[in-house]
């Protein structure tokens, strides 16, 4: 419970820090009042900020996406639990949301596992299934979808799909190349694209950040020391 609260607090702080006008006083989202039930989040797991400033929070416990404006005001909530191509199962606190330049919203559901695509108003567009669990999702300016694989198989780290869900390519060496559950945990990584479509990958269990070119060439790998307290 305390872990969830800590993650919730961290995410809320990220939402607040993403808001441009520091003068705006926000109430922490997770403490919203009874009258603002729509804003009640349950284990928010990930967030993405669109160019417009709109904020999309993946509300894992409610299997939905909550859309806020740049001032943190509730706009909409969409997505549902259950079964079917438009249903989102709990993502288990994964980094499971991304937004493209047209503000389409991409959600990875590692349980089913599948990727769901919504338009910015929350209309479900389509989904496609993938044969592995995912740790993270990112989208570049060409609307190519990058998924980091969370798998015990000895395979590549990153899988790329078109916006229509066609598998395009895979690349990236795993930190631990052997198969198995330990290697799986060590290779869990989160991903993000920059404005030039370079892909950044950070490993959760090891302080390494890699930078890949848009076509998947490794440009750099930096290991960071964890500062002692």
């Amino acid at each position: 419970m305390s872990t969830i609260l800590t993650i919730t607090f961290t995410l809320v702080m990220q939402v607040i820090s993403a808001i441009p006008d520091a003068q705006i006083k926000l109430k922490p989202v997770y403490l919203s009042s009874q009258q603002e039930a729509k804003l009640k989040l349950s284990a928010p797991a990930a967030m993405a900020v669109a160019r417009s400033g709109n904020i999309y929070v993946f509300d894992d416990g409610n299997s939905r996406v909550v859309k806020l404006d740049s001032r943190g005001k509730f706009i909409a909530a969409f997505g549902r639990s259950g079964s079917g191509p438009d249903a989102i199962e709990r993502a288990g606190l994964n980094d499971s949301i991304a937004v493209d330049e047209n503000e389409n919203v991409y959600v990875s559901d590692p349980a089913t596992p599948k990727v769901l695509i919504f338009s910015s108003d929350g209309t479900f567009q389509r989904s496609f299934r993938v044969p592995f669990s995912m740790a993270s999702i990112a989208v570049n300016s060409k609307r190519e979808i990058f998924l980091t694989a969370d798998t015990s198989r000895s395979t590549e780290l990153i899988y790329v799909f078109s916006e229509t869900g066609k598998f395009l390519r895979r690349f990236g060496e795993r930190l631990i190349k052997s198969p198995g559950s330990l290697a799986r945990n060590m290779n869990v990584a989160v991903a993000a694209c920059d404005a030039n479509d370079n892909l950044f990958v950070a490993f959760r269990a090891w302080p390494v950040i890699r930078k890949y070119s848009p076509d998947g060439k490794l440009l750099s790998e930096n290991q960071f020391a964890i500062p002692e307290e």
Partner: protein
Amino acid sequence: MPGKLTLLLTATMFVVGCHLSAASQSGELAKNIGRVTINPSTGGKTPIPLGSELTIVNVFDGFSPGCPTGNRFETIERFNSLRPAGSTVLLIFSEKSFTTQDVENFKAILPMAESMVQGDIERLRPYLIDGKLLVVLYSHGRLVWQEKANVSEQQLLSELLNLVKTPRK
């Protein structure tokens, strides 16, 4: 004495009844397998293609690594790497749950691409166990083995391997 006779009769009826019931269930399953169709990449719908000896057919209504469906895939992958010549493996993904593109993606990403196909498995839906079902068919379509509930993947693998090793007439 009449009491013992009654008991014996009851026990016999129970045993026979159970067998008849199991046989009829198996017969129904065999009939329904015959109605399963696959969607080959060349288009159209065709019945399950049978190999020269045993055809191991696994239908999937879902696919999730670490769950029964994902574990089943790994079992078949292991079996496939050991299987003797003559046995054929067919993995049918439900067209209700997987699009054509999903199956194409699976083929591109996972091993055993040549065994994967999309199909209409609705006739087998009542028999699915945790979103999957494995059956073994002989070359003329006779059902020779079917998956049962609460059997571990390890046990299932060893039963399959025994089955393919058993000489058939």
